[in-house]
């Protein structure tokens, strides 16, 4: 569904992505992991066309995303730190995105209801806590029945109950056959979600493996342990 071929991106002299190629397919739930500053968010932003790589091609459904914006209709994106116009209320932001996407019927309002956004519609974005902003981001990401979900640290800052609600939503989407790309540092949280692991380091792809195969290879029971096992054996 998404095919990335040899992309490279520099920020000044810092190389955020280094000749990275990867293919992401439908029905997979992929965890993007790696140390801080390894280029995860840059990769995500490149897929969304917010960061423009110097080299390489990104294809969405076989079409290059360069000079295209319609493909973003199929993507629900939840940023790591949601930045919203400060003087708008939650209600106005949601209405605006609906208007801009021109998608007003058959909306998916499950998260909207479960997070009880209705009670906060008149709150200004400026006054929201980090967790509430995350809730708004997730509501917006899942509202438009997208086929691809890109979630950058989705559960960071959410309370355990909300976090559970969001996780169930992600599992639902996976079962519907959507492609889901998640970055997270909480490896334990990913265990019941993901089907594939992508490990990045210094802008390079180190590992792209099916979770079951990875566990089998390393002989460990959880993702966290198998990754640590792998890193240790690599270093040795």
């Amino acid at each position: 569904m998404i095919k990335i071929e040899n992309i490279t991106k520099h920020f000044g002299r810092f190389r955020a992505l280094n000749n990275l190629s990867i293919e992401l397919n439908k029905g997979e739930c992929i965890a993007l992991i790696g140390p801080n500053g390894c280029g995860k968010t840059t990769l995500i932003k490149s897929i969304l066309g917010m960061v423009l790589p110097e080299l390489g091609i990104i294809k969405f459904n076989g079409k290059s995303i360069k000079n295209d914006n319609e493909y973003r209709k199929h993507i629900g994106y939840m940023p790591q730190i949601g930045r919203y116009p400060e003087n708008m209320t939650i209600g106005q932001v949601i209405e605006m995105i609906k208007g801009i996407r021109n998608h007003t019927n058959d909306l998916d309002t499950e998260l909207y209801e479960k997070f009880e956004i209705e009670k906060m519609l008149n709150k200004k974005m400026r006054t929201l806590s980090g967790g509430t902003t995350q809730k708004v981001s997730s509501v917006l990401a899942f509202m438009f029945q997208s086929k691809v979900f890109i979630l950058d640290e989705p559960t960071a800052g959410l309370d355990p109950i909300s976090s559970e609600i969001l996780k169930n939503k992600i599992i639902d989407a996976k079962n519907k056959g959507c492609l889901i790309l998640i970055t997270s540092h909480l490896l334990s949280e990913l265990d019941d979600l993901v089907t594939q692991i992508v490990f990045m380091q210094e802008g390079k792809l180190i590992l792209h493996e099916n979770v079951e195969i990875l566990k089998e290879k390393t002989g460990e029971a959880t993702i966290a342990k198998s990754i640590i096992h792998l890193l240790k054996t690599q270093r040795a």
Partner: protein
Amino acid sequence: MIRVLKYVALDILKNKIIIAYTIMLALFAWSAFSLEDNESKGVLTVLNIVLLTVPLVSILFSTIYIYNSSEFIELLISNPVNRGMVWKALFIGLSLSMVTAYIVGVGIPLLLFANFATAIMMVATGIMLSIIFVSVAFLCSMLTRDKAKGIGVSIMLWLYFALLFDGIVLFLFFQFADYPIEKIVVILSALSPVDLSRILILLKLDVSAMLGFSGAIFQNYFGSNWGLVLSFALLGLWIAVPFAISLRKFKKKDL
């Protein structure tokens, strides 16, 4: 495009600065015309105020507005919206509000008090000036990511166009008064939108006779229909070029 423009326009309207700006311009214009007994003098007073304030408010408000809209822009870009479209919608939204403020604030009293030809010229140049400085503001905000730096650059540019440039031209004029530099001065004046507007308006007033020899030359170059077309084409370039550069930069920007 229209959908994005709608949200931009709503947001600017909510920001009450534009309304305050309109009222301020109206106060200046009405008081200038009611204090001066002669309409020509009134026009001159308004002209001086307009040539200082319109560029200042246009460039400063627009620069700050664009920097403050970074979240708004980011949010739009992550949705299926064309980048160029977002930038153009912002430009049209800001230009429209500046132009509306000018027409309501200065345009109405001008059309009521001044003679028609002068009023039309002044409204036209004022509209051009408003849009030109919005366009320059867009360029400033693309030059640097740092808000303070961006606003600094736009203030510097305003100082340069509104005050410094005039000084430089005058300095040249006096230093080389013995040489036939009138043509060069004409060309130089055309390089600053503020000076060009001032000349265009002065030529419509009786006081242009007081400009002496250079007035005659200006009349020669800018007074004819050709000169008028050329002047407005130049003002048009001042809108198109900075905006086109900023649009190219914006399309390549990492958000």
